[in-house]
């Protein structure tokens, strides 16, 4: 019996309330930043698991899946939240397998056993009725530590990639990129910051970096192509890293990666692993999400009635635009991302 085939379990009212509260917090802007969202999602799922009545693998899987599905339905753009749900699902499956193996025969690792074990992991959940909550607690704690440290781990790679007298270009404001660039501040490199859609945020970030000792030049995003030939490296933070090695970037960043490709400038994409999503370029639901056009044209003009203004939330950067993903496990090339995907998540959980 595979829980991905059965009907979705109906959640208890108290869980529905908790999820609703979580969704409301994000919608009302109390919870911002993908890392914070991921961390509170861990807390939410931990609560749900510890309060669930049954603790068999099947029960827990259905519970976490339906919770994850509910969050994903309400917040399709908080990809980190559904990724966390997938990670926990994987942990439950692993834990179930471990306990099944233990109770069966003595564990002796052999190549044959490893190969056979995968099929057990893929398809069905054993009939064992262990209480998995205790061992899961360790997994969840581990996940939480990973999430907490992920941005510092990513940033610790900064000094490997940014060198003295290099000219680095970044696009728009991003907490992760800012931290990354600040970590490398001792290298005395030069930074060009192309204004993103939120000009004020970009300027504030430039001011903070400048105070940290980085020499920053702000350019308009229209000038990206003109300066690209002089740039040594491009650093951008991704909104989501996709399974095929592509990435979702902030709206407008496609111009950056395209120009970088033209001049063969390396593009470093900062992607902590909680941003790795099992979605592919063919799912178009995320690629044409529109937000308010106020960044492009002010509402005051009465002509707004006659024009169509498209302001996409994300830009899609194909795999060949990205040189290296910097994750918390180190750098990996776009062609290796599919592998990361199967290490982190169970294929049964790609669709929640």
């Amino acid at each position, binding site marked *: 019996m595979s829980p991905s085939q059965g009907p979705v379990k109906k959640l208890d009212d108290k869980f529905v309330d908790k999820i609703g*509260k979580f969704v409301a917090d994000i919608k009302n802007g109390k919870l911002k930043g993908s890392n914070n969202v991921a961390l509170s999602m861990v807390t939410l799922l931990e609560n749900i698991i510890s309060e669930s009545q049954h603790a068999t693998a099947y029960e827990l899987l259905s519970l976490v899946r339906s919770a994850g599905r509910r969050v994903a339905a309400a917040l399709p753009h908080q990809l980190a939240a559904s990724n966390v749900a997938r990670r926990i699902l994987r942990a439950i499956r692993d834990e179930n397998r471990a306990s099944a193996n233990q109770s069966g025969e003595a564990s002796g690792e052999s190549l044959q056993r490893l190969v056979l074990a995968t099929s057990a992991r893929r398809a069905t959940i054993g009939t064992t009725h262990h209480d998995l909550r205790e061992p899961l607690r360790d997994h969840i704690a581990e996940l939480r530590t990973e999430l907490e440290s992920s941005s510092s781990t990513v940033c610790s790679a900064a000094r490997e990639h940014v060198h003295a007298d290099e000219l680095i270009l970044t696009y728009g404001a991003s907490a992760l990129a800012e931290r990354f660039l600040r970590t490398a501040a001792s290298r005395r490199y030069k930074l060009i910051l192309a204004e993103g859609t939120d000009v004020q945020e970009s300027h504030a970030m430039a001011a903070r970096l400048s105070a940290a000792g980085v020499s920053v030049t702000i350019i308009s995003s229209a000038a990206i192509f003109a300066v690209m030939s002089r740039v040594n490296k491009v650093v951008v933070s991704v909104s989501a890293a996709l399974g095929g090695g592509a990435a979702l970037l902030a709206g407008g960043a496609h111009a950056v990666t395209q120009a970088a490709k033209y001049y063969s400038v390396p593009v470093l994409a900062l992607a902590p692993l909680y941003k790795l999503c099992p979605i592919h370029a063919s799912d178009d639901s995320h690629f044409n999400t*529109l937000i308010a056009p106020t960044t492009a044209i002010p509402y*005051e003009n009465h002509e707004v009635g006659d024009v169509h203004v498209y302001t996409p939330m994300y830009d899609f950067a194909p795999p060949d635009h990205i040189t290296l993903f910097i994750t918390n496990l180190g750098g990996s090339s776009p062609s290796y991302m599919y592998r990361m995907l199967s290490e982190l998540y169970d294929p049964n959980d790609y669709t929640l």
Partner: protein
Amino acid sequence: MEIDKENVVQAVVIMDTFNSHFNPIINNKPMGLLPVAGVSLINYILEALAQGGVGETILFCCQDGQKMKDYVRQCTKDKAIWSLTMDVQVKMSDTCQTMGDVMREIDAAGLIRGYFVLVGVNTVTNINFASLLEQHKQTCKKDKGAAMTLVYKKVAWEHPLISSDKPIFLAADASSNKVLIHQKYKPKSTEKKINLPLEVVLSHSEVKLHHNLADANIALCSPSVPPLFSDNFDFQTRDDFIHGILINEEILASSLYYILLKGSQYAAAVTNWKTYQTVCRDVLHNWAYPLTIESGSFSQNNFLFMGNHNFREKSCTLSRSSALLEDVLVGAKTHVNDNTVISKSVIGKNCIIGNNVTITGSHIMNNVVIKDNCKIINSFIDDNCDIENDCTIDSGTIIASNVKVETGSQLKGNILESTEKDQEKLLFKSTSESTEWDNESSGSGGDDFIGFEKNWNDSDSCYSSDSSAETSILDSPVPDDTNIFLQEVIDSLARGYEEKLKCDYLILEINSSRYAYNIQLHEVNFFVVRALLSIPVLSESKNVLSTVRNILQYFRPVLANYIKTKSSIMDCLRAVEDSCIKCEWLEGQSGLILKLLYDADVVDEDALLAWYKDLQENNSLIVNQKSLVKFFQWLEEASEESDESD
């Protein structure tokens, strides 16, 4: 949900608009359930309030409160997102007729603990109410008397939010944003001058003038606002309040401020069919983000974006040969057949649209069936209607729910509603109304998004237009109170005419007498006209007619204030009849007086004809007067002439 009661931001939502701009659609359902771009207004406002940091909301319903209550209860049961962070109470009162009554009721019930947000149900906005309210509190620290901060969005002068609504002229002190002058004009007012008193300029170092503000019906209020309404019983609308405060700033010790919204903040109010369309389009174009076509529903991403701001629900089916041109929203489970072309329209859920249908600039609600070869342009069709083959529905036709339109009907600017819900009969309202609803042909050439034009009932008329009320005022003996009232009005007007008082003050006086003697609005209309024709000057004057002309000219603003709706015009005419019978100085002059009123645009032709018919039926004393007969002959000839010249 334990929240610190002291710091919770409170909001009051007035669930009615107290006007008839959306009749007959809101006769059947409350304003809050009117869908804009597929989402009910109540969902927009509740989601906006929850996202704007409001913790407690009071929905104040004057009509259909039970429906609203059920709806809110259902949403809370379904765990709508706003219901988790916000406490929503529904208050009902059937006796409230104006916004002023609502505020007095709120004051009496003591629902407000401190500063609060006051919005109308027709507001669509994405602003952060909590931070704006904080700004208002800062203003209050500087000025203890600050009663209200008005929230405006600056738009271009030609923007439909201004040009199809009442434009505002606002003068304010530049350093403190204190409002000094606030004037509302009639829509499409051709007035080219503004009056700015000299002391406004002299007493402030810098004065800002705004003419291009869109009023989103949002106000941030101090705790003093409800008591102010209670103390001043003539405050009926927010405009009365603003006006009253500005005139009597010293007496009431209150002042007003304003805030302009910044770039990404969107705010607009749905006040009539034109702004309804503008707001619809803005929502489709994502200007109100994060409010979208999916506001209020828990699961998101149910719509597919097809380019050109066309959205379709995942479960709707579109024929391969149908075309969505631009700005189209197609709801769930709707089926669109072959060769149908849709543009700039919103189609609801479970509709069936036949072959070769053209739909442009229209709003079609849920469960509507439209058969083949129909043309629907700039119209509104409510739930469960059936439109048979080959119909043409054009220029602002409004069709209420459960109507069946026969094969081959040609509708132009009509209002249709079913007489009995189960019989599904159709009723054409008096054809005269079609002219009022006619689309403005001159409107920005070729723009098929013009929308619905309507004559402007002034919003502060609280009297629900019940023109069929046969209770003839003449037959009933005049009670004492009304006699005293009439005498008082005559006195005020006579004094006003002699001393050349401002008409605004006279209106105020009449309104206070009205409350003092508890006079119905239609009676007020009647007595004001009656009083105008009974001013003592008339009985003394030699040339009665020229005096009447002068009086009418002088009291034009007073008349304009009372005589606005169809029913009030009838009141006015009845008053003329009454006067002509009772006042000897008007004997035989009725036709000439009507001519004066007609020339002054107080009464219109349709009303005159209807009234004349009434006269004939009732065998009134003046029906055979020479002047009257002559006048109606003249009127008929004039209308024939104008028909020919068309």
